[in-house]
């Protein structure tokens, strides 16, 4: 009788949602700033679509990585696995027996194989993920050079057609330097990004597995006690991340049409940065898949800003670091203001990913 009325309910946003919200708002502000400062470049829709068209592999990898990170792990092998896959596909497609279906199978197969191997070692043998996925990174890079080290341009006609395929939006576009109208183009990879985003975000939100990942990332020991199959959950997160690396690998070669040692090199660092900027914590348990692409886009817009501003070569890296710095500090200041309750942030219910409708507690 006594305690029920003591406390009013605080409708507080969960960390996952707040971080996502911050990332989204800052991104939008940054894009607006970019449009105002460099309208020539940013007013064009193609600029926006190209962010996706050209970076679909990175976006896809980030999604898988995000899931691993929410589960409290890390996967730094993804970039190299993606690179390995482009080479494997290229070698296969250029061979006598090459076919697109086969290449897709190879891509997914390699990705999943890496996922299974790493997932098993991390989940069931309890070895630290950093060590294992760093070995995975070495393994993929080594296999790549062992397999083939010169660049291969795939010339198989069917594949070239696939590579050049794009959805054209005829009513949207811009005029180029000579005044010719260029319609907007969307690559299949972009469509795939959207599809995967929807699937994986739903998976994390509405599947038992997804919730288990959050539980394991939040507190592995508690999750175990609550009856979550911790090992299997961790295992699956790595398999998913392997799978997305596989898909990313295929999308990569579908975009560039070539196998090359340098493909997707260093993508893991970018993916980690994207995930974190998008509001996923490295410690696990907090994150939002919708934030992942926002993180990536933020990094990419920073690049485009630097280009459009014509920053001098030697300062580009510094400026990019500086912009990153502002972004990060801003994010952190907003977080701490919110902890001090000096500002209130709420998210429209349809955007909330981890706590859905407010069911009033009937007291």
């Amino acid at each position: 009788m006594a305690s029920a009325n003591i406390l009013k309910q605080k409708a507080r946003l969960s960390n996952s949602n707040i971080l996502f919200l911050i990332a989204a708002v800052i991104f939008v502000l940054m894009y607006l700033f970019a449009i105002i400062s460099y309208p020539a470049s940013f007013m064009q829709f193609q600029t926006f679509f190209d962010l996706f068209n050209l970076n679909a592999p990175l976006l896809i990898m980030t999604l898988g990585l995000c899931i691993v990170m929410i589960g409290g792990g890390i996967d730094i092998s993804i970039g190299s696995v993606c690179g390995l896959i482009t080479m494997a596909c290229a070698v296969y497609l250029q061979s006598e027996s090459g076919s697109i279906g086969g290449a897709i199978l190879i891509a997914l197969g390699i990705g999943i194989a890496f996922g299974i191997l790493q997932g098993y070692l991390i989940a069931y043998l309890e070895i630290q993920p950093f060590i294992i996925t760093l070995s995975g990174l070495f393994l993929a890079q080594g296999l790549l050079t062992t397999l083939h080290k010169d660049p291969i341009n795939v010339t198989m006609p069917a594949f070239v057609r696939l590579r050049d395929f794009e959805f054209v939006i005829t009513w949207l576009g811009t005029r180029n330097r000579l005044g010719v109208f260029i319609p907007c183009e969307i690559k299949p990879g972009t469509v795939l990004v959207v599809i995967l985003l929807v699937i994986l975000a739903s998976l994390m939100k509405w599947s038992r597995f997804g919730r288990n990942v959050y539980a394991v990332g939040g507190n592995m020991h508690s999750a175990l006690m609550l009856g979550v199959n911790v090992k299997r959950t961790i295992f699956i997160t790595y398999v998913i991340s392997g799978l997305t690396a596989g898909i990313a690998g295929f999308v990569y070669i579908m975009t560039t049409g070539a196998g090359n040692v340098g493909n997707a090199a260093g993508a893991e660092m970018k993916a980690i940065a994207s995930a974190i900027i998008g509001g996923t914590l490295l410690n696990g348990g907090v994150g939002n898949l919708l934030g992942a692409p926002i993180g990536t886009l933020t990094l990419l817009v920073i690049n485009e800003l630097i280009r459009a501003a014509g920053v001098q070569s030697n300062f580009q890296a510094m400026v990019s670091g500086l912009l990153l710095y502002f972004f990060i500090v801003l994010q952190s200041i907003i977080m701490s203001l919110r902890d001090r309750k000096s500002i209130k942030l709420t998210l429209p219910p349809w955007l909330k990913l981890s706590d859905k409708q407010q069911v009033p507690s009937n007291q």
Partner: protein
Amino acid sequence: MLSETILEMTDISKSFPGVKALDGVDFKLRKGEIHALMGENGAGKSTLIKVITGVYEKDAGLITLQGESIHFKTPEEAQNKGIGTVYQEIMLCPNLTVAENMFIGRSHTALVNWKQMNEKAAELLASLSIPASPTQELSSCSIAVQQMIAIARAVDMDCKILILDEPTSSLDEDEVHKLFALMRQLKERGVGIIFITHFLEQVYEISDMITVLRNGKLVGEYETSALSQFDLIAKMLGNELEDISKLKKHEPVASDSTTPVFECIGLSSSKGVRPFNFTIQKGEVNGFAGLLGSGRSESVRAIFAADKVTGGEVKIHGKRVKIKTPLQAIQHGIGYLPEDRKDDGIIADLSVRDNIILTLQVMKGFFKPLSLKQAQAFAQEYIEKLNIKTPTPNTPIKSLSGGNQQKVILARWLLTHPEYLILDEPTRGIDVGTKVEIQKLVLKLASEGMSLTFISSEIDEMLRTCSHLIVMKDRQIVAQLRGTELTENDVMNVIAQGGKNTCAK
């Protein structure tokens, strides 16, 4: 009278490095029975539970569930077989919502139906009148609420066996009664319940059978009605306990007119306590009384600057001082034993020794490390003084039983010899014997001139030790009661009336 056995454990043994936590223990649970598991801190109760549910693998022995031999490898398997458990350290996921915490690991459908889950959770919360919303993140709930949620979760399971390891340690009387009503219902349904607690009254109120463990060995199984409280204690401790009623309060050494050791005026903190005034004299023991969530902990946290202090001034021996961080509080001779042992108290992976000397070390300073020998000596001294059960001072504190961890934290503060020591629920999860020891210790320290604040969810404990009770309601001090002859009724009355008058007896 005795019905069919559902769980039988024979000759269970389990060792950890340096301790034999269980040594040939037998245990039997019958259908529709509430079976209390009793024993001192470190007797092996929690270990026995964890052996059943597959958290630990037993070294030897046999467990049968309804005649079928079982060997769980993970808690998940135990749960699937109809064993619901609330562990001593609340085991929930802080980053999930309340509803999720109640249902995670239980459903076997691939998809989560949020709407249905939230509704079910809301129902369950309402039926137990737990003041939490299903969609709230768990980390924003107080420990008591978390504990209730853990219980709700276990109770809701369609289980054959329910295991409750000290579920009542942070609940107030009301909640305890609700819980008991629920346990009785389940009992009717034929669920076997294992119940661990250090509150003897609760044992006598609810249980049918008692099994007593001592030092990892089985002492015996008794029918509750046939075992007197005195005998039970004797069985648990292996010797007889002094009469608690002999405890006598000491009046403050100095009279009220002298400057108080500690005084605060209009103190408030970021956690939302209303500005409050408060003084304590040399050698005085006072206490904060109030219901769950009334802001007792928050007030003392504000005194210690454990939360961000947002206003008010503090005087020590009449001199204004600035206390903005716990370090400053410590340097001004204030000590604080937090209520949340796991999150605020222990440094889990560090040894018992390091946990004991931690604060002393901080006071000594960065460039004056204690030598290993000194540290060892201090640790040894307090391990003996407080009778802490640990294989060695070098053992990580996390492998101690809950009660013994609490004693380590207490030792940590005693070692710093504070002028003013705040104890927030120091007796939580502590066995009867030690509880008395702690109360005696409090009085002894006071008689030596230390000022103490003693908070306990058991009012009689406070009545026995405190000569000044500060009653809180809705995060506000509503009354200050003084006098050596306070009774529980006085306090309850004040709380019920909302404390319009400040009376002194």
